[in-house]
């Protein structure tokens, strides 16, 4: 837990959940797992508040609890999971591209609530969709539930672990905290529910609709007194699956830019076929035979079998080594080499950072060192064809930023500098970690700046909100155009301009936070994948 991570986590908690939760989260992050009493003592808040804050955090999977052998329950904050709060917009956007509006809203609801039963989620989403639709139309539950089922089938959402059914033993006292477990096969099975119904609007102007809705509402309220049919079965978003999807996307776009569109389609097909068969941390996908790939190609691409074979051969031969040939059965079996792909993407990210910060000649030296591992200063000058003075300057700059390190090889037992070889080298893992730390700090900086901008213009924002509220109420009660105009005039021209600027700035900062998050994703996946390899 570095300083930058801690800072980012507290900012995220404060923005999403408020100050009390932030305090509790902070204390847990800084001091590690601790029981409830100590937590209360640390934060100085009331017991009630701490309990509620912990509830919120556990609901969102940000804090785990564990029963210690002594009998006390300790709570531990998951910093990695807290950092995922930054990525929520990306998850929602991905769901939108894959499953349309119902998918987008379902994922959003699940992310905002942490855990939700299916019936609840479907009802909410249908209501929201109905809000946005035209008058007179409502969203049927069946469409939303079918999207839900599809999300579960492709493993984007999963069931939360439930309390294990233990035989009731009256003699033994119940454990202080329930142990949650779920079987692998149950994780994605959707319970058989017949959810019938339509979405409700909040305000309906139509009289007939009202009558109908009133009747429905009564029925619904009556229904809510009974437990919904899927009580106890809660769903949560499966973040790992989304990460797999992002990784696949990055791979495919890299192949598309390095080779051509068709090759990237082939790779995309291969990845799609291995979506549910490959474990999330695997370094290779399962071998796929060329016949299978040919059958699973999307309908639009009618390339012949021969051509497909040629593409596969080209992909396997390419120096990128994303695809490897693992055998000859079934017309040739191919796997996607996930670990290598992540390594290439991460080194490309490092190179692009060096290029933007120090210039293209420095990038040349950096790539040279990546390829040749260890080089003396003279050799660097020779290979890179850069004049000695400039090469020296660039190497020292990169050395001071710790992107490049020196390896000493002494010729004599006393490490006399004149009789020692000094070799420059790049340590990719160390550089990746350092840049990841820098990313965290950058995102924290951007968030602070955004909050600062909002604080500066607070007065203006409040004023505009008041004006909008007045306008809305006046419109509802049917005011004349002149009166509306008068109210609008309350916000002067320059103030309007300022508001425009503010909105634009906040959007810009938001967008760039997401962009830095993409870099964070690539670097984190690379570090994780390298650590997992034996």
């Amino acid at each position: 837990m570095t300083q930058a991570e801690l800072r980012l986590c507290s900012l995220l908690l404060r923005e999403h959940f408020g100050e009390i939760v932030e305090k509790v989260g902070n204390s847990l992050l800084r001091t590690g797992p601790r029981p409830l009493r100590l937590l209360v003592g640390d934060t100085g808040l009331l017991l009630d508040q701490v309990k509620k804050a912990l509830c919120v955090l556990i609901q969102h999977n940000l804090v785990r609890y564990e029963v210690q052998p002594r009998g006390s329950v300790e709570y531990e904050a998951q910093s990695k999971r807290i950092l995922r709060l930054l990525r929520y917009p990306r998850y929602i956007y991905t769901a939108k591209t894959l499953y349309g509006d119902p998918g987008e809203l379902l994922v959003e609801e699940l992310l905002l609530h942490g855990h939700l039963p299916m019936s609840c989620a479907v009802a909410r989403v249908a209501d929201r969709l109905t809000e946005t639709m035209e008058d007179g139309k409502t969203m049927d539950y069946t469409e939303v539930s079918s999207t839900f089922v599809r999300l579960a089938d492709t493993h984007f959402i999963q069931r939360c672990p439930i309390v294990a059914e233990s035989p009731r033993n009256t003699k033994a006292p119940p454990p202080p905290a329930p142990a949650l477990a779920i079987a692998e096969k149950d994780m994605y099975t959707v319970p058989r529910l017949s959810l019938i119904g339509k979405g409700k609007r909040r305000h309906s102007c139509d009289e007939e609709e009202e009558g109908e809705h009133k009747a429905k509402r009564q029925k619904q309220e009556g229904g809510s007194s009974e437990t919904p049919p899927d009580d106890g079965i809660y769903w949560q978003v499966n973040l790992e699956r989304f990460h797999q999807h992002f990784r696949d996307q990055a791979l495919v776009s890299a192949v598309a830019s390095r080779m051509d569109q068709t090759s990237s389609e082939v790779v995309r097909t291969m990845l799609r076929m291995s979506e549910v068969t490959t474990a999330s941390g695997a370094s290779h996908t399962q071998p796929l035979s060329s016949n299978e790939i040919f059958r699973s190609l999307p309908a639009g691409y009618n390339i012949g079998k021969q051509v497909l074979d040629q593409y596969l051969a080209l992909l396997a031969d390419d120096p990128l080594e994303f695809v490897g040939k693992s055998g000859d059965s079934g017309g040739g079996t191919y796997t996607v080499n996930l670990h290598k792909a992540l390594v290439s993407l991460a080194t490309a990210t490092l190179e692009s950072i060096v290029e933007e910060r120090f210039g293209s000649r420095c990038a040349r030296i950096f790539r040279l060192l990546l390829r040749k591992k260890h080089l003396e200063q003279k050799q660097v000058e020779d290979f890179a064809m850069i004049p000695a003075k400039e090469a020296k300057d660039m190497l020292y700059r990169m050395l001071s930023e710790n992107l490049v390190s020196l390896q000493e090889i002494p010729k004599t037992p006393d490490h006399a500098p004149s009789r020692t070889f000094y070799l420059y080298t790049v340590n990719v893992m160390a550089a990746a970690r350092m840049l990841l730390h820098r990313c965290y700090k950058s995102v924290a900086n951007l968030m602070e700046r955004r909050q600062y901008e909002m604080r500066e213009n607070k007065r203006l924002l409040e004023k505009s909100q008041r004006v909008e509220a007045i306008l809305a109420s006046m419109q509802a009660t049917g005011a004349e155009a002149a009166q509306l105009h008068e109210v609008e005039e309350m916000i002067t021209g320059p103030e309007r301009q300022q508001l425009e600027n503010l909105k634009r700035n906040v959007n810009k900062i938001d967008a760039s936070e997401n962009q830095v998050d993409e870099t964070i994703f690539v670097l984190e996946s690379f570090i994780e994948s390298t650590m997992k390899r034996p």
Partner: protein
Amino acid sequence: MQQNMTFKVLLSSCRIIELCHQFPHGITDQVIQNDMPHMEAQQRAVAINRLLSMGQLDLLRSSTGLLYRIKDSQNASKMKGSDNQEKLVYQIIEDAGNKGIWSRDIRYKSNLPLTEINKILKNLESKKLIKAVKSVAASKKKVYMLYNLQPDRSVTGGAWYSDQDFESEFVEVLNQQCFKFLQSKAEAARDSKQNPMIQRNSSFASSHEVWKYICELGISKVELSMEDIETILNTLIYDGKVEMTIIAAKEGTVGSVDGQMRLYRAVSPLIQPTGLVRTPCGLCPVFDDCHEGGEISPSNCIYMTEWLEF
């Protein structure tokens, strides 16, 4: 009597020189004896010694005995007035030939003290018999070679160095030209829209092709070899713009070296510039000093302000 002696010696010296001219490869003592049978051995020795000290004769040892050879008149005039030490140093430098020789090595070979060497070298330089060439490997080191010799490639650094200066613009120009050639080849291959194998193979260019193209372009004043072009192409690889494969080629196909051929292809970058560098923080020079509440903080960051106004 004395006058007679010197006159005789002069005569015999001239006669010996004439003989040497007759036999440019050298004459032995026997030949002189045959020519002038009346001369005594002592007189002969005196005459020969005189000629040697004047520097008009070269004394060589051959399998049959001693040989006297006429020295090159030009050289003879050059070395007039030099003493033996200088001659020795000169000979050492001559032996070094193209590569030149460092002053410390001259010292080892001649066993003369440093001060003497320096004096002699200065002397020879002023007479324009030798010259000092700065080595490109170690810029403080000077190697000496004969005045009219062309220094070797290893000393001057080859095609990339002109007057000990690295020609970076020349390298840059070559870099861009090679890249453009490979790029246009790749584009032509892509537009041909044939099956992918042929497309890829036609987008490759061997180093020989690139070399021919550059030679035909004529942007280089210096003759460039294929190795030079390969070093330029390597820099393009380190720029991430070009990738290389080595294939086995039959001996005798144009451009193959030891049964292998290097093929180069222009490629586009793997990813777009990454997210971190699109924010001011990614490129900020004072990143490490930035803290909330300090002199430099996100709230009053001037880079961010400029960036937001953009």
